[in-house]
């Protein structure tokens, strides 16, 4: 059992396997006042393992599977606390964070690598796959967490989120603002909606508010540094 601090919440993890503790090593805290205590049953871990095997054809060990179950518990706790997990890659440049959202395999990781190439030394990772987004004093912040995709890209930091960008592959590099309505439809595919009534309602309210408070973009891009420059120049522009 150990405590971590992620997204400025203290979470006590009562684990069965070592994997999750190693995964969380950069987030461990001495703070004992946990906001949430998480543990998973054997039945839950076993059934999640079966899902990996049946739906994805992936044989995962129980420690890894436990870590996924734990993050889901954390994810379901967040909406009542003005926070949520967003499936996307978040980077930071000049003190602002930018989130790229797309289906797995579209090229989020590739695109943020291109930012790092186009602006050497100026771009830092926040979280490569599943950042927590939290509202604090009216602004939304993206947080690094240990759960960050296969590349393991994360830093234990928070950064003010300026914009989200839905990413699609294209022949030419173009970026345009996308309406909040269309963003609302797209973002639903990038979040986990709780199965309980209060959690689901709160998540929808939070999404409505979130979209009002960040810029929203749609990018069509290839895998050249020009793609990064196109998205960078639009998203970082100050009105």
């Amino acid at each position, binding site marked *: 059992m150990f405590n971590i601090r992620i997204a400025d919440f203290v979470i006590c993890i009562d684990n069965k396997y070592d994997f999750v503790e190693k995964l969380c090593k950069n987030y461990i805290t001495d703070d004992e006042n946990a906001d949430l205590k998480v543990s998973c049953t054997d039945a839950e871990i076993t059934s999640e393992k079966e899902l990996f095997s049946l739906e994805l054809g992936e044989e995962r060990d129980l420690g890894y599977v436990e870590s996924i179950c734990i993050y889901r518990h954390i994810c379901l706790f967040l909406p009542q606390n003005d926070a949520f997990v967003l499936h996307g890659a978040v980077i930071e440049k000049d003190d602002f964070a930018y989130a790229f959202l797309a289906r797995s395999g579209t090229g989020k990781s590739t695109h943020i690598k291109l930012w790092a190439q186009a602006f050497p030394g100026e771009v830092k990772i926040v979280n490569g796959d599943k950042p927590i987004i939290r509202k604090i004093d009216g602004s939304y912040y993206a947080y690094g967490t240990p759960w960050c995709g296969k590349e393991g890209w994360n830093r234990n930091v928070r950064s003010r989120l300026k914009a989200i960008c839905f990413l699609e592959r294209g022949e030419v590099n173009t970026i345009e603002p996308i*309406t*909040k*309505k269309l963003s609302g*439809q797209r973002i639903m595919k990038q979040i986990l909606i709780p199965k309980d009534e209060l959690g*689901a309602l709160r998540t*929808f309210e939070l*999404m*409505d508010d979130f*979209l009002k408070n960040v810029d929203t973009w749609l990018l069509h891009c290839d895998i050249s540094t020009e793609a990064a420059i196109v998205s960078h120049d639009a998203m970082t522009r100050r009105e």
Partner: protein
Amino acid sequence: MKIKKGFILKDVAGNTFVVAVGAMSKKFNGIITLNETAKLIWQCLVDGAEKEEIVEKIMDEYDAEREIVEKDVDSFIAKLDGDGILE
């Protein structure tokens, strides 16, 4: 006619979404997106309205031909019924 218990409807950034919650979420995965008319029909069905009431309500709200409205209401109700969403 009435929507079964276990669905919630919520507006997000100009969209209307419906999801199943609680025990119902084991049967229905995913999100239903409703347009303006579908939302009106859904809300009537939450209250257990009959088809005629729903048609009247839409006629009050929109400038449309009764025949078309009836057809739309019929097909939406049939869809909901087919998906096992109505009691």
